């Protein structure tokens, strides 16, 4: 037996009735103020658009020069992956893997999952494994930390300012835009709608 019209708050477990909600509104728990769910505007189209933009930016961020350090006549150019490679070669395997996962692999996986879920929704198709994949998506979200890496770049630039000039490359711009675009992509996901559709006619 299912109770579609009712929802329990994830933070205080209070059961509440949810009236039909207009797009763009958020329902909050009457007792603790936690977000029950948000109805998003045009979720499928917007998520797909932002995700495709994100993938393009991702390719640019990974392939183009990231930061260059100029000190006198010496110029050292680096890519987004250089730091991870150097950590690996210093024997810091765990640390390198952690950075690789949180800043490169998990964001990429997020975008692939969004395409995998939202393209079939857009063309009204049912795909195998979409339910466990969307569950995975919700679990990896807090481990995507590109925006924190961006803050790290800022700190590193200031730290090295006395020693050398840091020249940001095209990849930094792409990376910065990617952070914004991915945030928009994820915030356009209407989880409630996705679960209703995925679990719908089964």
């Amino acid at each position, binding site marked *: *037996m*299912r*109770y579609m019209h009712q*929802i*329990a708050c*994830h*933070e*205080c*477990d*209070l*059961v509440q009735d949810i009236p039909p909600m207009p797009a763009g509104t958020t329902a909050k728990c009457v*007792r*603790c*103020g*936690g977000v029950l*769910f948000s109805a998003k505007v045009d979720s499928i189209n917007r998520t797909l658009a932002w995700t495709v933009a994100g993938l393009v930016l991702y390719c640019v961020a990974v392939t183009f020069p990231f*930061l260059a*350090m100029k000190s006198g006549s*010496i110029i*050292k150019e*680096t890519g987004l992956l*250089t*730091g*991870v490679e*150097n*950590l690996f070669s*210093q024997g*810091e395997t*765990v*640390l390198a893997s*952690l*950075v690789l996962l*949180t*800043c490169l692999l998990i964001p990429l996986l997020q975008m692939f999952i969004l395409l995998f879920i939202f393209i079939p929704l857009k063309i009204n198709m049912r795909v195998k494994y979409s*339910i466990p994949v*969307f*569950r995975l998506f*919700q679990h990896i979200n*807090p481990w995507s*930390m590109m925006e*924190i*890496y961006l*803050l*790290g*770049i*800022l*700190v*590193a630039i*200031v*730290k*090295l300012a*006395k*020693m050398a000039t*840091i020249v940001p490359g095209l990849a930094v711009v792409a990376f910065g835009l990617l952070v914004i675009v991915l945030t928009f992509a994820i915030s356009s996901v209407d*989880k*409630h709608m996705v*679960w209703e559709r*995925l*679990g719908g006619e*089964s």
Partner: protein
Amino acid sequence: MRKSFASAKRLGLVSCHDCHLLSRLPNISSHQNASCPRCGGELHQRKPNSIARTWALLIAAMIFYIPANLLPMTITSALGNVQEDTIMSGVIYFIHSGSWEIALVIFTASVFVPFMKFLILIYLLLSVQFKSIKRPKDRTVLFRITEAVGRWSMVDVYVVTILVALVKLGILADIEAGPAAIYFASVVVSTMVAAESFDPRLIWDVVEEKE
């Protein structure tokens, strides 16, 4: 019992962690796992062993916090001079060189936030264990903030990664990651998992019991 203020647990219902579907908890023995009729996720009325798991991860994080702050984060060698920097010596360097904004960012993210996370989680755990009914809403908000803010502590690990990438000029200058880096990353990861294993609904269970 007021009908408008009933938790799912009291009504014999269970809310799925993953897809939020409310369903009736099937009558099975506690050794079996129930799964959600819609998404197949494991159903628990409360996160399993929430208090014990959170304590374990929290204590682990507090132990990691000590070497993370005492050992060097980066080892810089420039023209034969070797300099080891801890988190705090980095903060002090930034204050002296005039960039107090950056000093504030590093201090907040690397020292203050993890420490506050320890205090808040200890407070939340004890308040549940001693069945406090004081200000449940504020405690829930406190939990929400702790959960959201913790990941930003990772910034120092990324700074090290970027420095290691940029400063590699052979004997002229070279930066290597110090032993503290991995301990510090462990602090961030274990406090994040600790916050995730804490179940804020336990705060409200106590309140409902005493109502």
